[in-house]
């Protein structure tokens, strides 16, 4: 209990210091390019009340969610196959390196050119950016699978589904957690770029609008709102799931 109190106090202090530095910097700069924290808060409240911010936030979150899910499922499947089969790995390794190194912007532009300025193209572009990362991480996990458990599954005739669920996936859960974490952080940033380039709603689209109007308070208000939501996902979804997945560790 005291540990929790200490960490809460720690968090408030550290956040307070950040706001204080911001406040001082804004007072020193005296420029519309760096508004006061209070101004940003006011903008945030106004935008929330009008329903504009929640709407665009929800749209971006939906895209992030779908792209995240797609890239996790497809990336994990590719990584598993590459990690388990030496031949597949050797053959497709250069593809993986190629895709890992294509700039996100190139994928986005090409998707829009090839598939049009559609929702599917936007989500696809984000997924393609993330899939190679997930595949590379999961490949490491699949390579590290413990032989003795595979022998167990085979000699007791577990079958494919049981083996996957009770033998393979539990061993991969640290790798899942790692790629989900870095995945979420990467995916929502790319979603903003996708929205900026070819969508007419979402946080990225709004940021583009505010950029043209030099509306810095709105830019900061949207950013902070979004970061807060992502942090909530970490605290209320990832952390509990990780605790559950690791409950067996002594």
């Amino acid at each position, binding site marked *: 209990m005291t540990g929790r109190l200490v960490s809460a106090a720690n968090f408030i202090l550290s956040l307070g210091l950040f706001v204080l530095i911001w406040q001082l910097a804004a007072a020193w700069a005296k420029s519309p390019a760096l508004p006061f924290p209070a101004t940003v808060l006011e903008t945030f409240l106004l935008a929330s009340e009008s329903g504009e911010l929640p709407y665009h936030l929800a749209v971006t979150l939906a895209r992030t969610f779908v792209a995240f899910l797609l890239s996790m499922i497809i990336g994990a499947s590719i990584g598993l196959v590459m990690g388990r089969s030496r031949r597949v790995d050797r053959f497709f390794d250069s593809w993986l390196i190629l895709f890992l190194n294509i700039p996100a912007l190139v994928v986005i532009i090409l998707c829009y050119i090839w598939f049009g300025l559609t929702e599917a193209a936007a989500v696809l572009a984000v997924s393609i950016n993330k899939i190679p990362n997930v595949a590379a991480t999961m490949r490491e996990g699949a390579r590290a699978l413990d032989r003795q458990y595979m022998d*167990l599954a*085979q*000699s007791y005739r577990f079958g494919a589904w049981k083996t996957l669920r*009770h033998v393979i996936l539990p061993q991969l859960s640290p790798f899942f957690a790692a790629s989900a974490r870095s995945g979420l952080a990467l995916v929502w940033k790319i979603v903003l770029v996708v929205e900026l380039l070819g969508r007419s709603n979402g946080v990225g689209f709004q940021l583009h609008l505010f950029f043209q109007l030099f509306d810095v308070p709105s830019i900061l208000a949207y950013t902070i709102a979004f970061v807060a939501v992502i942090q909530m996902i970490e605290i209320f979804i990832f952390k509990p799931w990780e605790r559950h997945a690791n*409950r*067996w560790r002594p």
Partner: protein
Amino acid sequence: MSWLSIQVAQKHYNAKADADRAAPEASTAVLKDVTLNVEYGEFVCILGASGCGKTTLLNLVAGLDKNFEGHIALRAANERREPRIGYVFQSPALLPWRSVGENLRLVMRPDQIGTGIERELLAEMGLEGSYDAFPGDLSLGMSRRVALARALVIEPDLLLMDEPFVSLDESKASELRRLLMRFWKARPMTVLFVTHDSREAIQLGQRIIVMAGSPATIQRDEMVMLTPQQRKDPLYIESVRRQILSNSGPQL
């Protein structure tokens, strides 16, 4: 034809995992001309030095490794179903992320689920308190017990055991041996018990196969007809041991 017939003409390890580093001809023969016929209900100990290929032989019988010359046939104990094989590995190999009870339930047949048989079996082995524990919280002795329970819960026709009581102190190991004998007497099944400990082999086996050499072959095949009292007598065991090993060469 006997119940279990093993005919391994040749078994190589061709270092498949390191195929790109090792030259293809760098394959070592592990087993050669291993022929063994076992009747249903026999308790056979396979005795040999560590690393001589006993585990390889068990893996062939279990069907984990199909890459060998020869053939292994297992007749059904019962015409209505496939023979069931239980395997106790050298390490307990319990899934650490599943509780003890779940580890047993995972290997059980659909018709066994819900009968509570796994709970009864664990209780019989003195593990009633560990049903919901995770394997990481168990001692090695308890883990080995759970591994034995997992192999027994499926009511195997053939029980393969690969040094299942190794690295336990003697009192725990002999307790587990007694437990195993009790189950083997209670329910007919064939046991192939691999060990490098000749005293253990004589205490348990009705028949002792001595394997040695590189590639390994069967050096001796002895029936051991001892009474339960004789099996408990260390001096008697010692004399049988000397008799069996007198001309088999390697130190066991």
